[in-house]
């Protein structure tokens, strides 16, 4: 959960008893005072693992918070169970008050939209419609002049069109165009890939123009894909809520315009439903939440509306987190997994990422082509995303393991595995 490798190091240094005083923990929280350039008060809310520290560091969580967690994990006897001091009680009370305020807000959003809100919405409708009309003309031009000509186009060619979509308040379409910019010349079959992207984009604008003919759930999908966002409060108030014990399987990050997007995948142990928690870090800011990867917790999730709900947020947390040590509730063959993918695509054709939890999987490395594969119990295999997967191979040792990964239609990105009764989160590079 550390923001970068240097924080991990700094945290490990502070994970020794000698740096700390007034350590303590209770059912709700963990606290201690750390001697830095001043005496810093560090507190951890155990239900969310959110850390607060009185130090001036802009990194979140700071090294003091990480140090306290590491200290508690390594030498639990150094952090006695005791009554929280005043500064912890008041902090917890404040946090409770904030979450209450959020709930009041939630109640408010249920009220009827005001006249001015309706007007703003109508104005935006018109803007989006005009933007889409221009986008369709542009797409037609691309195909009329031939995709072959696009190999030599500068980045500004795509960026210009993306900006127009931002101006038309269709940020979803803008993001799709930005992704297209990276395709020309990136692979031998790039014209086919680019054509697929253009085609799916055309299908999307077509669907938006005929949105009344779609089922209500698909209408939601299309609106969201174009760029109409649902506020978190709205999702909390109206989204489908699922209470389950959820496993935090792993995380992937991807650069976006001016920052990074972080995807955290969860799987419901009873419902067997996947859920995706999205967070953004813009211009170097930190992600608002830190999730206990590799652990399970009872949560109530609220899904964004849609025909194949995937994105969700945490509505309420019940109980504490425990490490995931039992087998993953996954499918046993790729056949079953890909059938599920087909079923989802039949409902929501633009879905791009799918959670793959496969039991009894065996990773395999083909040195000759430098390609990593994941093989299922029937001997069928899907390629793993390019990368060094030695940790995966080491954990498996050629034995079947339970695997969690993200399928993008072409390759599997490993998120974590359960091997020898312990779940291991597989993060790229030094994000551990």
């Amino acid at each position, binding site marked *: 959960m550390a923001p970068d490798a240097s924080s991990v*190091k700094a945290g490990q240094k502070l994970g020794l008893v000698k740096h700390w005083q007034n350590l303590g923990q209770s059912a709700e929280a963990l606290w201690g005072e750390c001697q830095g350039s001043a005496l810093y008060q560090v507190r951890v809310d155990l239900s969310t693992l959110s850390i607060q520290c009185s130090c001036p560091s802009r990194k979140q969580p700071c090294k003091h918070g990480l140090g306290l967690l590491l200290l508690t994990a390594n030498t639990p006897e150094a952090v006695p169970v005791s009554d929280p001091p005043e500064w912890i009680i008041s902090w917890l009370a404040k946090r409770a008050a904030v979450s209450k305020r959020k709930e009041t807000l939630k109640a408010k959003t249920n009220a009827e939209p005001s006249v001015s809100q309706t007007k703003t919405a109508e104005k935006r409708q018109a803007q989006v419609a005009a933007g889409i009309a221009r986008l369709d003309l542009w797409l037609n031009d691309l*195909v009329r002049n031939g995709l072959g000509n696009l190999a030599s186009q500068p980045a500004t060619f795509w960026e210009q069109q993306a900006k127009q979509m931002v101006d038309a308040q269709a940020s979803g379409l803008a993001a799709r165009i930005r992704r297209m910019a990276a395709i020309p010349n990136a692979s031998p079959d790039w014209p086919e890939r680019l054509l697929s*992207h253009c*085609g799916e984009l055309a299908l999307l604008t077509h669907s938006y123009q005929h949105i009344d003919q779609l089922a209500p759930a698909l209408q939601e999908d299309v609106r969201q894909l174009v760029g109409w966002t649902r506020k978190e409060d709205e999702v909390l108030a109206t989204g489908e809520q699922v209470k389950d014990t959820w496993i935090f399987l792993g995380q992937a990050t991807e650069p976006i315009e001016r920052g990074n997007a972080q995807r955290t995948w969860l799987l419901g142990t009873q419902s067997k439903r996947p859920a995706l928690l999205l967070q953004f870090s813009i211009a170097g800011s930190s992600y608002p939440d830190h999730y206990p990867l590799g652990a399970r917790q009872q949560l109530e999730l609220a899904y964004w509306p849609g025909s194949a709900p995937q994105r969700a947020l945490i509505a309420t947390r019940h109980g504490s987190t425990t490490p995931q040590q039992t087998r993953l509730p996954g499918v046993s063959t790729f056949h079953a997994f890909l059938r599920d993918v*087909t079923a989802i695509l039949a409902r929501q054709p633009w879905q791009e990422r799918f959670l793959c939890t496969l039991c009894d999987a065996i990773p395999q490395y083909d040195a000759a082509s430098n390609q990593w594969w994941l093989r299922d119990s*029937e001997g069928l295999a899907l390629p793993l995303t390019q990368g*060094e997967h030695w940790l995966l191979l080491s954990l498996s*040792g050629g034995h079947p393991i339970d695997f969690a990964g993200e399928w993008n239609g072409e390759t599997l990105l490993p998120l974590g595995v359960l091997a020898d009764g312990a779940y291991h989160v597989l993060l790229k590079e030094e994000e551990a």
Partner: protein
Amino acid sequence: MERIVTTAIVGTGQIQLQEASTGTPVDALAAQLVGEQERKLLLTAGAWSIYRRAGYCARANIDGFNPVQALSGKDIGSRSHPGEKVHTPNPNESSEDALAPCSPRATHLLSMLLLQHQYKPLLPEALARMQQAQLRIPHALLPLVLTHSTQDKNARAPLLPVLGKRGQWLSRFNPAWFWVTDSLKDAEDLQLDTAKIIWQEGTSEQRRALFQRLRAAEPARARAWLMDVWPQEKATNKGNFLATLNINLSAEDEPFLEQALGDRSSSVRGTAAELLANITTSALSQRMRARAETLLNYTHGTLTVTPPHTLELAWQKDGIVVEPPKHVGERAFWLGQVLAKVPPQHWAQLFGVSPAQLIAAAKENEWEATLIAGWLHATTLYKQQEWAQALWERWLQQSSDTPPPFDTSLATQLLSMLPQQDIENAILQLTPNAAGWSPALTALPCAWSHQFGERYLQLLREYIRSSQAHSNQYYHWVQSVNLAAIALSPSNFDLALIPWELPASPAWYGKLCKEAITTLTTLIEMRKRIIEEIN
């Protein structure tokens, strides 16, 4: 390539016959579209793309084999029918381990040692403790530890016993980690057939590793193999392989070495001559002794030195190099080379004197520097402890001499030939001149005795307290701290961790001392944790 793709690449504006077929059922759907050509093509492409994504199938045959399977002759591609469980054991699987995994806290400790640069020097100690406790590296840390030891060769030997079955198995897949398998192979299970293939076709590093093992196991066969390929080898390879004959060197090697003495490459000739000199019964050894006796004479406490004026061809054939390096006279150069190839104890026997007496007699001589250098080389070549001791005594006296007959790095070499107790005593004689003993510390094995550690810490405290910034010794003290942190005996830990009194001024000096002491105490505390948690 499907028609729809070619049409899109060229552009609908350029093609007369506008065809957008995909060769899939999507075409039937596309036939219902109305409107502009371009729009129709785009929508068809979109549907086709989703059609293919939804119909994706997993691969039944994975390209290529991995090394293990290729060896076992089994095909990973051959699979059972859907729904049927695979019962045959996977040739890929690593077998069960006799070693126990280490505790979660020990695992955490190991990951700290691997991830934090400052702790890396402690890794060999931690690995050695794991071996003692019959533990193995946890699976999750194997790639990290293998990568580390691939770069840091010192960490290889202590890693091998704690890799466990899984680590050995894993290392067979990554070419960068093949050194594990290479070093694990015992001399006994050297498979001659495969070894011969490596010997003929392997990389030079593989061949060198193989040759070393073979020479250790079967000296005669190794020599025979080398003689087979000798005429075709490059000079650099010849030199390397020849030097390996040092393992299990015997009189049986003499004929071949005599042949190598006639090689075109001077470095090969040099190596052959050195090896022959090491076989005391060899003809070359006898020739060298006879030559040396014409150069030195000792009567009534006086040493007479008569270096050769010309170099005979026979001498050159025995590996004596003609051309001296810059600033060295040729007579001295030749003399030194001959002396280096005569066992030093030969002189003591010949003249009936002790090494110390002979060294003392050389003191007045104009050729002293050459004599000392020659004897020094011979002492290291023939591992003569008595001479090492005597030469060391001579080195201690050198401060009054100008110029000193030999330098610090040679002195360190001498020291390392002595038993640990003697080295420690020798170093303690040098105190308090840190410039003198700090390099000598490297001659000590990496586990100091309790007494030595105690004395070292005492001196270090005195030095730091006295704040002798002006003495210019701080560099050596700071250097020594890095070594002490690793080499101090655990019984000295408490002494090392007693708070240190640090000088306040001058500021730069105070900072320097503080950094050095922080390094010392951090590493010592870490070593304490290693001892507590790995057992």
